[in-house]
């Protein structure tokens, strides 16, 4: 469904600070794939997601979605196909808008925006139903400013907004990393529910190996801008944290981050 062929991404190209962020990366993402992505700091995980979303233009290679070449589509145009949740909970919502206004903006993702009413009374029911799934009581606070919500609540709202209009591809960029452990666990459960209930094609970057192993049907390990492991279905379910660490040591020339090591201990609420 999504076909990425030999993409390369450089930063500061031609200067002494040149970084080759993504190296000849190719991958076919099937309809309904839930892929978790792990890798050390600077492996290119977030850069890869940004290349898919169009935030970064690739220097070479092609990206196709359903047979359409979207390589040169700007970010806002790709948003028709892609829903996103960022690491920073403040990035995915408008603090000065109400919950209803934010939901209404998300309902128009990838559609033309005209002079019709921004928040339509007829949509409020839909908003309430979608927010009810969160179990956070947000459905009764539609007129509250989003700036009043906690980071976890804002991230949950972002998740609902990203999937309010069914995306062809859902990109989750370490979307639980900035949350406290309990909220992160709830967020993860919500992710599992929304993604599996709707059969969404999803890419999720994480620093937590247990998350990567427990969620999804496919696991990708990245290192220095390349995919060094692509485990599907059975191969993925037979993977263990130890096996992943071993892979890191052999393929990754031993440089795994402290954060990665810390995350190998079993999380409290997972």
């Amino acid at each position, binding site marked *: 469904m999504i076909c990425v062929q030999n993409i390369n991404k450089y930063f500061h190209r031609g200067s002494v600070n040149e970084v080759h962020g993504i190296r000849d990366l190719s991958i076919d993402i099937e309809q309904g794939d839930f892929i978790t992505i792990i890798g050390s700091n600077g492996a290119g995980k977030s850069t890869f997601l940004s290349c898919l979303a169009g935030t970064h233009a690739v220097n070479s290679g092609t990206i196709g979605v359903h047979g359409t070449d979207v390589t040169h589509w700007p*970010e*806002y145009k790709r948003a028709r196909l892609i829903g996103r949740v*960022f690491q920073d909970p403040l990035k*995915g919502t408008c603090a000065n808008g109400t919950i209803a206004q934010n939901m209404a*903006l998300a309902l128009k993702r990838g559609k033309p925006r*005209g002079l019709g009413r921004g928040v339509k009374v007829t949509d409020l029911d839909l908003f309430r139903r979608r927010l009810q799934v969160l179990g956070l009581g947000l459905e009764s606070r539609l007129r509250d400013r989003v700036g009043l919500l906690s980071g976890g609540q804002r991230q949950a709202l972002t998740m609902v907004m990203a999937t309010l209009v069914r995306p062809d591809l859902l990109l989750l960029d370490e979307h639980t990393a900035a949350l406290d452990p309990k909220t992160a666990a709830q967020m993860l459960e919500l992710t599992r529910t929304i993604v599996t209930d709707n059969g969404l094609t999803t890419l999720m970057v994480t620093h937590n190996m247990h998350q990567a192993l427990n969620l999804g049907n496919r696991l990708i390990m990245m290192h220095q801008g390349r995919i060094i492991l692509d485990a599907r279905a059975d191969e993925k379910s037979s993977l263990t944290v130890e096996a992943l660490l071993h892979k890191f040591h052999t393929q990754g020339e031993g440089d795994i981050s402290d954060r990665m090591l810390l995350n190998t201990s079993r999380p409290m609420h997972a």
Partner: protein
Amino acid sequence: MTLYAFLGALEQGFLYGIMALGVYLTFRILDFPDLTVDGSLPLGASVCAVTVTSGHSPYLALTLATLAGFLAGAATAILNTKLKILHLLASILTMISLYSINIRIMDGPNVALLGAPSILTDLEKTGLPLHVLSPLCFFVVATSVMAVLIWFLHTEFGQAMLATGDNRHMITALGVNTDNVIIIGVGLSNALVACSGALIAQNQGAADVNMGVGTIVAGLASVILGETICGAPTIARTCAAVLAGSLVYRIAIALALSFKLGDFALTPSDLNLITAFLVILALTSPMLKRRLAR
């Protein structure tokens, strides 16, 4: 202050209030500090003056002035979004260009409009004295503009504009081309400023290339005074606050200019100092209030 001076201040408040609403649109909604307004106010006046003196209707003049203002704002926004020039610098470039352009339009530094028809000409037949008619008429115009702006900011596109100023990441990820929103937003803002300039020219009977000096400061003063006095909990309330801020600003200036202490009196050349003082007062008053409450 005499009643006559008070009515004059109200009239000025409503006229410049339209400009202040434009400044609010860029400064607060789009988070785009826009100095173009110092050029687009006289641009509106110039276009209006030339259209009226060449024998066309004052309403057509108003429309053309508003369109010219939109183009000036769009030019600034294109410099910023497409050519990646810093917003502040982009607006200064358009502003200084407009100085030359305005002189070209008027074929000189000013055009007199004394005796020329204005939008008040038809209304004078009602028999109301001009010093009552004129603030009344501009009250209707300013509040209508405010109502349209409030309606616009609640539309799908208006909401996208609010989000563009608030969180560009988010609204881009939701499929909005923020460059276009900024071009239209800054364009609309300057359309309002030019419309205000055109009305001012009709009202004072002249257009002058230097009449725009300090527009941005007066606009900001109105926005900040209004928000401080009336609060800004909702869009509608804030728009009303901006208009009220413009009235307060003009009344404060009228009061200051009528101030006399022995031989000492403030003159129109002290306006900038008075404005700066008012803005500082408005900006610091919430802090002072909190200090006093403790």
